[in-house]
């Protein structure tokens, strides 16, 4: 329980700090260009890693299971330009169905 509150506190503090960099700390000065280039690529790099680890990650092993069925359904939903919530629900339903059938 206390671990959850530590997480909430630390993630909140870090985010508040990042959002305050421009308006409070730098007071209008720009970030150096070479740093800005790296920062813009952090989100795609970390999100891709999250896709991989949440999809096939296990306890120090690659695990292939019903999650693959779920992501397959999600890809179809994304190609059909479904809203985010629909994509999530379709993925969960497909995985649950695959588990119920096997």
């Amino acid at each position, binding site marked *: 329980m206390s671990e959850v509150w530590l997480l909430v506190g630390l993630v909140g503090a870090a985010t508040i700090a990042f959002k305050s*960099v421009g308006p409070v700390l730098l007071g209008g000065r720009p970030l150096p260009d070479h740093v800005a280039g790296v920062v813009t690529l952090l989100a*795609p*790099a970390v*999100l891709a890693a999250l896709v991989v680890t949440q999809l096939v*990650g296990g306890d120090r092993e690659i695990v292939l299971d019903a999650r693959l069925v779920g992501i397959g359904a999600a890809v179809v939903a*994304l190609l059909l330009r479904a809203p985010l919530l629909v994509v999530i629900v379709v993925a969960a339903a497909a995985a649950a169905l695959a588990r119920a059938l096997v």
Partner: protein
Amino acid sequence: MTRARYREGARAVAPIAVAAFTFGASFGVLARTAGIDALAATIMSGTTFAGSAQFAAASILGGSGGIAAAVLAAALLNVRYAPISVSVAPLFGGSPLRRLLEAQLIVDESWAVSRRADGRYDRGLLLGAGLTLYVSWVAGTAIGAIAGEALGDPADLGLDAAFPALFLALLVPQVRTRPALAAALLGGTIALVLVPFTPAGVPIVAAAVAALLGWRRP
């Protein structure tokens, strides 16, 4: 005059606010898989107000990745708010506390709608849009978290498959440029290679190295 701009900002994000509400509701539901209860999930949405980082932190903590990896991954996802806040810094005035509080309304969507055709940013649009999204996000989280407690076991519902689908959906609009696509492919590969050898959470943090592709010679 200014009040009209706030309203315009609120109207501009109205469709996104509906999405933010449902997205917040899904965070409330999925946070349970990490043992984050309704109160903690709602307070997290109120203080962090950044969806992808909150989902990342919850999924890593729930996947026994440890608190350090969870916090670090969330921080890496939110570092982008430093340059984003720099780009709109001239819109903020008054005491440091006031600037600090108003700056929390900066999120990807409020930032995007406040950008005018001439490349400058509009304060009324930014704050009106940000406040609308904030209320939707926090209310959605609370309702989702409370409703989620009535649902059954997260694994039976396929919620573990919801996370990769969610991150994929968040990734797609981020990889519209070649450098971003390259960083995503490299980051995903680094994570895949490390999964069998490192504790959970490490592959995600290590994948951030891929962002160095964006380094420009000073």
